[in-house]
Every structure is written in C-alpha cells, then in structure tokens.
C-alpha cells in the first residue's frame, strides 16, 4: 500500500521557546523551508552531529508532482542521506531522450552511455515522494526538530546570532540561531524580510503541465517534440512518472489565458490530441506556469545562507532547479558543521556562496540557452532554430546544436579557492573541483560501489597495484589517518589478486577495482592519491603521497587560505 504523501498533514506542536519558563536558547542552525533542499540540508547537518531546527510555514508536503527529474548526483547525495535506495526503487529510471520535429524523430541521446555506475542518469519521481522519503529519514534523527505551521515573519541579524520571529497558531515567538539556512523557495519570505532580491530574466511564455494517469505504451524515455502535428507551432514534452502517471508539458505561448487553460475543457482536448481518442486517462494535476532565470547577487548575507530556489531560479528545461538546490544543501552542510564545531573558520562559509553562485551561473546559462532554442525570441533566432532542426535529421553535426534541455550534471568547481591546483600530470575528468564519479568495486569479495565507500568526511582515496604496501606508504597513510582533521582512507587495489595489507591500517577501507574502471575514471596509477571533500568533490590529487602537501591541501579545503 502506497502512502499518500499529498494528503498527509502534520500537526503544530508547541516548542520550548513557547514555554515561558524555559530560558532562551540559541540553536546552532535553523533551516527555513521543508522542501527537498531544506530537508536535505537539515538531514545532512544532523547526520554530521549538528543540532538542527527546521521550520516550515505549512503543514503538508508538495502539492502536485512539480520537480519530477532527479539526477544521478542527487541520488548519490540521497544515498549518503540514507534514503537513496527508496528513491531509486520508487522512481522510474531513464537514460534515453528523443527529439522529434513534427512527427519525425530527429535524434535520440543516451545520458549515461557508460555502465559501471550505481545510479542511473535520472529517475523521475514526484516531488511529494522525494519530500516524503526525506521527511521519514529526517524523523529518524533525534537531533533534528521539525516545526510545522511556523512562519518566519521577522529576521534580525545580530553579531553573534540571528533572531527570527516565528508566527504560529499559538502566537509568535523569537527563535535564535547561530546560522540560518534559507531554503524557503522562489518567493523566499526570508529574502524579502531582509530587503534582498533575486534578479534576472523572465521569459514571456506560458506552459501547461498536465499529469495524466493511464496505462500507456510509451517507453520510459524523455520525448520532446518541436512543432508536433497535435500541437502545431509549439513544443511538447512527455515524461513517465511512477504509479502510471505521465507528465505532459505543452508550450502555450504568452497570450494564453492561464486560468482558462487550466480548465479540464481546455486540457482534455490537448491531451487527447497527443494520445488519440481511444486512450483512457485521468487528469491528476494541472498547472500553468511561467518562469524566470534569476539569482541573488550573494548567497551569503552574514549569518543567513540562501539555498535552492530562494537563491536562484532556472527554467525547467534541464531539470536544474531541485537538483542544483540539493547540491547547494550538500555543499553547505559540511561547511556549516565544521564551522560550528570550531574546526574551520567562518570564512569557509564564503566558499559556499562562491561555489554555488558559480554553479548557479552555469545552470542559468544552460537553462537560458535551452529556453532560447525552445522558444526563440526573434525572427532570426527562430530562423536558425528551424534550420538546425531541418539539418539535424540528415546531418549528425546539427544534432549537437539541438537544445531541448541540457540536463543537470554537477558543476565542476574548477576555480574554487578550496582547490589545490594539480602539480602532477593527470588527464580525465576528475580534476580538482569535480564531483567524484562512481565505479564498481569489490569489498570483502562482495560487489560494492566506490561512492558508497567514501562517506561524508574528508577522505583520502589511494590507488595501489601491489598487494603489499611498503613501510613508507603505510607510515604516510597512518599520519594522514591520525591527522587533524583525520582523513578517512579508502584504498583501491588496481592490480591483480587481492590486497593483503588490511592489518596495517585499522579503520581503512580496502576495495578492489575488479573491472579497472576506477583506475580509468580517476586516471590512476600505482601510488596516485586523491583528497576528497566531505561533499565528494575532488580537492587535490598527486601521483604520490607527500604528507605535508596533503595536509596543506586539507587546510586550504577548510578555508584556511594556505598559499600555493
């Protein structure tokens, strides 16, 4: 039996602040907004041992399917948050997209053309399931307190804390926190209360979302039509969701009347035009939307850190909204946790803003380009768009110009001040700033995944080909393991046979790269060493371990600004 996450309601409960006899406490972190981003941030922080209060103005989860495409990187993050398996199990996995011009297939693409990854390129899953699974995980964490029907109506920054005024059914109260994570959505009340705004470009176009439930024969792929016969001169997107629900997205144009277009009398004929008159279906959710590509100038304002839609907005083409917000949460959580524990300077939080502003720019750039291709803004833009589509069915070169959405991949934070630039020669994608990629490995003779072994702490990933490690290597690894902060060690054996050095390094994880894919993807040789951040972005790499160099890179990754 499926839980109906859309109809769940959560009760308001009086909190300690509303008890007049409790002295006022200052919480380490207050997260505002229990959407995918706020929940991810709160779980991540709580898992790292930080006390979190999560406030939400409402008492329900997402209404309607809303964000339905969750990228591999988000699934990898959900795995670390302890709910990736549920998401992947319930979600519909897909890797293939098809693009049509009128009724002719122009081309198809595979988002994850290589095997050897635990998670698919994408799953489709209604946002209420994502929030529901995250919420159930959050409730398992004793140091995470969720307060429903708690609306932030005032924000005041003081030197050592932030004070929020929270409105509840039983009156207002003051809530103090050392830091506030504002994940309160596109219309962010926290942003407004602080007199800040999110600026950019609003697109003059309207789109209709129709979620229909039906037994359909369509394959589990992303289908995108330019100018289809059943909806001439506009675009249409068809996508599968769990529970036999299909998302159909119709471009309507700017002149469409949003209220009228939402009525079943208008929606049903549009759906029938696509599905044919014989297909039986039931409308589940209908929405008409417009969108903007915008962001705040700065994601950090003193002790308030903005994440997700509150900080930036994109068009839906490319699934870069929720996915980038979840990456914001991932980027912020470890930094906040370390700062609160006194293990990193407050300046580390500046790097959150810098890195995620950079990522937001990349997402906005990609999403703006897709939007300009899908809805050309001038005659000449339309002329070239159509020329590309006409050439694409016959000439492969033009297919790379067809842009129906450049789908979300993690930003490579190549300019981050936390990185230590390469000193040694490496090729491949795992440059400093890149998010670590997965590979199949064997652990204790059982199949496992490289990413699952890494955890949420600074990790040293060491590649070795000989079954026995020499004394010098063991000493270096021990020193890093016992350093401050201590490194978790993952040793990847890239030679034949199995490693037999387990006893030398208690606590280290030993895996075997039985397919050779880890070695290939990390351009590793015997002795190669990667320093990974708690969010699994590469911080630095070397061809051989030098303890002082690794420690310097670690200090730099902690925001202590060690010069190169």
């Amino acid at each position: 039996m499926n839980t109906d996450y859309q109809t769940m309601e959560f009760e308001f409960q009086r909190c300690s602040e509303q008890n007049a006899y409790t002295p006022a406490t200052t919480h380490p972190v207050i997260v505002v907004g229990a959407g995918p981003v706020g929940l991810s941030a709160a779980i991540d922080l709580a898992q790292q041992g930080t006390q979190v209060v999560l406030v939400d103005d409402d008492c329900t989860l997402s209404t309607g399917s809303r964000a339905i495409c969750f990228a591999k990187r988000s699934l990898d993050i959900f795995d670390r948050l302890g709910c990736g398996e549920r998401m992947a199990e319930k979600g519909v996995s897909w890797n293939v997209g098809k693009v049509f011009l009128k009724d002719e297939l122009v081309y198809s693409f595979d988002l994850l053309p290589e095997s050897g990854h635990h998670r698919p390129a994408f799953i489709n899953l209604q946002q209420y399931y994502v929030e529901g699974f995250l919420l159930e995980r959050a409730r398992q964490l004793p140091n995470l307190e969720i307060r429903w029907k708690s609306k932030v109506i005032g924000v005041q920054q003081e030197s050592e804390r932030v004070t929020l005024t929270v409105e509840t059914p039983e009156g207002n109260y003051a809530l103090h926190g050392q830091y506030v994570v504002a994940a309160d959505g596109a219309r962010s009340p926290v942003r407004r209360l602080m007199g800040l705004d999110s600026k950019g470009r609003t697109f003059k176009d309207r789109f209709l979302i129709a979620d229909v439930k039906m037994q359909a024969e369509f394959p589990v792929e992303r289908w995108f039509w330019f100018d289809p016969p059943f909806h001439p001169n506009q675009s249409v997107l068809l996508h599968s969701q769990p529970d036999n629900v299909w998302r159909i997205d119709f471009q309507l144009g700017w002149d469409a009347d949003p209220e009228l277009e939402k009525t079943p009398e208008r929606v049903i004929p549009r759906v029938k035009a696509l599905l044919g008159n014989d297909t039986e279906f039931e409308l589940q959710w209908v929405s008409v939307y417009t969108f903007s590509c915008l962001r705040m100038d700065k994601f950090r304002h003193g002790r308030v850190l903005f994440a997700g839609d509150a900080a930036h907005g994109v068009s839906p083409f490319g699934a870069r909204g929720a996915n980038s917000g979840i990456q914001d949460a991932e980027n912020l959580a470890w930094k906040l946790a370390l700062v609160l524990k006194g293990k990193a300077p407050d300046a580390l939080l500046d790097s959150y803003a810098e890195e995620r502003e950079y990522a937001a720019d990349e997402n906005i750039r990609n999403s703006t380009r897709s939007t300009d291709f899908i809805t050309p803004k001038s005659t000449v833009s339309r002329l070239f768009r159509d020329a590309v589509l006409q050439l694409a069915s016959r000439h492969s070169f033009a297919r790379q110009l067809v842009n129906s959405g450049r789908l979300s991949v993690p930003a490579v934070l190549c300019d981050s001040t936390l990185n230590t630039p390469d000193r040694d020669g490496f090729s491949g994608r795992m440059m400093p700033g890149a998010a670590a990629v997965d590979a199949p490995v064997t652990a204790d003779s059982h199949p496992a995944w490289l990413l699952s072994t890494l955890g949420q702490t600074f990790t040293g990933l060491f590649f070795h080909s000989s079954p026995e490690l020499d004394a010098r290597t063991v000493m270096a690894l021990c020193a890093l393991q016992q350093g401050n902060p201590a490194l978790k060690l993952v040793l990847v054996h890239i030679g034949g046979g199995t490693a037999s050095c387990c006893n030398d390094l208690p606590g280290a994880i030993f895996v075997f790269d039985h397919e050779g894919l880890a070695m290939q993807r990390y351009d590793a040789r015997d002795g190669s060493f990667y320093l990974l951040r708690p969010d699994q972005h590469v911080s630095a790499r070397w061809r051989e371990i030098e303890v002082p160099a690794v420690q310097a890179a670690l200090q730099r990754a902690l925001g202590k600004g060690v010069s190169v």
Partner: protein
Amino acid sequence: MALNTTPHLTRPDDFYEFLIEMHRDLDEAQSQSANAQLILLLANHIGDFNILCEAMTLARESVLKQ
C-alpha cells in the same frame, strides 16, 4: 587574427555565381532558411570557435558601420 581575410577561394567567380544560384526560385523565407543552413554547414566545417567568433564579430561590425 586567425580568420583568413586574404584571397583564399579557389574559384571566386564560380563560387559567387553558385551562391546566387543557390537562391534561384526560392521565396524570401526559403532563401533565409537556405542562408541559415549554409552558415551552419560552413561553421561546422570550420569548427574552431575563435575563428567563428572573429567572423561573426566582423560581420556585425561591418553592418553597424554602414
């Protein structure tokens, strides 16, 4: 500048004639589309982004100077 703006065409007059001939009997919209497709075909053949940028910049400047 990497863009070659010195004489490079093997058969300049033949090329020009062919270019005009490409548009024969096409209406305005078809002509525009043919031009756009030609630009895309040539751009792919050239490939190098910097050279293409130089050419696009030159073309725009030339129009604005008129």
